[in-house]
């Protein structure tokens, strides 16, 4: 199984979730993160003092899927989250050794 980690723009979350369910993803974890990257670094003024905004709000997805589904998931996220503007985000794939469903104790593919 693979763990797919993706940082995307927050307003794309709903579209991505929908797109993923249509290709058979049945679960995922979402967290709000502060992203640092090429998009960062514009400056704002607060009470007359200028400062750099280094972090932009992003949403992080973590999805564990069977190996054979991994590429499709990556593609789907890439296509749905793209706005062609800087800051669209990144997708990373890691290997997962075991998966367990707490409720049933099922393991690996059956747990997803």
């Amino acid at each position, binding site marked *: 199984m693979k763990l797919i980690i993706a940082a995307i723009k927050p307003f794309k979350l709903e579209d991505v979730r929908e797109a993923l369910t249509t290709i058979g993803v049945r679960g995922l974890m979402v967290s709000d993160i502060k992203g640092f990257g090429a998009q960062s670094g514009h400056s704002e*003024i607060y009470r*007359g*003092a200028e400062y750099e905004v280094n972090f932009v709000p992003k949403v992080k997805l973590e999805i564990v899927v069977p190996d054979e589904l991994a590429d499709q998931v990556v593609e789907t996220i890439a296509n749905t989250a793209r706005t062609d503007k800087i800051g669209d985000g990144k997708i990373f794939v890691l290997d997962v050794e075991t998966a367990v469903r707490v409720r049933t104790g099922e393991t690996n593919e059956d747990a997803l």
Partner: protein
Amino acid sequence: MRLLKILPAATAVALLPTLGLAQDADVTPTNGEIGYILNTFMFIVTGILVFWMAAGFAMLEAGLVRSKNVTMQLTKNMALFGLAAILYYAIGYNLMYPGDGWTINGILGAFSPTSVEPVGLAGVETDLTYASVGSDFFFQLMFAAATASIVSGALAERIKLWPFLVFVLVLVGLIYPIQASWKWGGGFLNEMGFLDFAGSTVVHSVGGWAALTGAIILGPRIGKYNKAGKTVPIPGSNLTLATLGTFILWMGWFGFNGGSQLYMDTAANVADISRILVNTNTAAAGGAIAALILTQLLYKKPDLTMVLNGALAGLVSITAEPLTPSLGAATLIGAVGGVLVVFAIPLLDRFKIDDVVGAIPVHLFAGIWGTLAVVITNPDASLIVQVKSIVVVGVFVVLASTAVWLLLKAIVGLRVSEEAEINGLDMSELGMDAYPEFHKG
């Protein structure tokens, strides 16, 4: 006394202590008492409005500090009001209004706790031309507390609780009432012809001077100015609360300035109060709009925190003379106050004076401006006298506060440890998070 209401009217009246019964038993109140009742009730209503400002300061400050210091800021605001209430009763009031009981004539008032009229004015000759001492004390007490509230905001996020509260004791018990007696107690500044209707100098600049000396002695918050000496903004954690606090202060100010007319026993007095209210309101509007437009022009984006400070600066600016200006003049006087803060806030930063909520620009700078502005609309005012008085009060408060701050610094220390400041005063000093469930970063 609830029962009364179900007794037949006759008995009811009989039961009521009525000074006037002698003159004409059948009318309550007697003509002689009406003015007294109106004056006293006016103080009650306006005094409650000024009390409300304590909540305004608490919300404004809680909104402009970081979430890790909110519980501490709230604790300071609650505690300082409680202490102010007790100290002003124990010492402050009679020190400020000695009548003819001066310790040093025109300079140092009387030392004695406050006592108000006996129940039902029983067995006392009451001067019916003013208001009850109780209502006057109630009203004045709120001014003393406001002075202390001004200080708490400027020194937020780094000063220890108890040393701060000790300073409040001295400020409300001695510093504030002594200098206030010079003007409002009928002391030497008053003799000189100093004019300060509701306290741009007597109240606001005093809080401002105390805040300034404190901010300098205390030093800036860790990280407020980086190695390069550049200012690093530290955004407030909750601008909704800051805005609520500003609206509360604006509302309370109607009591602050309106009640300072002191009398509502004639058509002229009540008309003056209404004139004061419209001027107070329009000055606040002028300050807010000036800051709105100016920040748009300077920074291309309006800065809400400056708009809030602008409204408050407008209010402070009109406080020295809310009666004589026309609506137009009042709007402009307030607007100048709003402009002042927009320039003063970055200026203070240039000097590395870290004022968390903008208390110094709002209360000190706008307070000075307002005191000078009296001469524009009030023919009885003299620029020299106004300046002299500003200086006299300023020197006294700066010296006195500095002494107290340095003493406290030497004995117990003013500032929390670096680690405590970094982790936030809430957990390190109080072990209590204001928003324990909410994720912050």
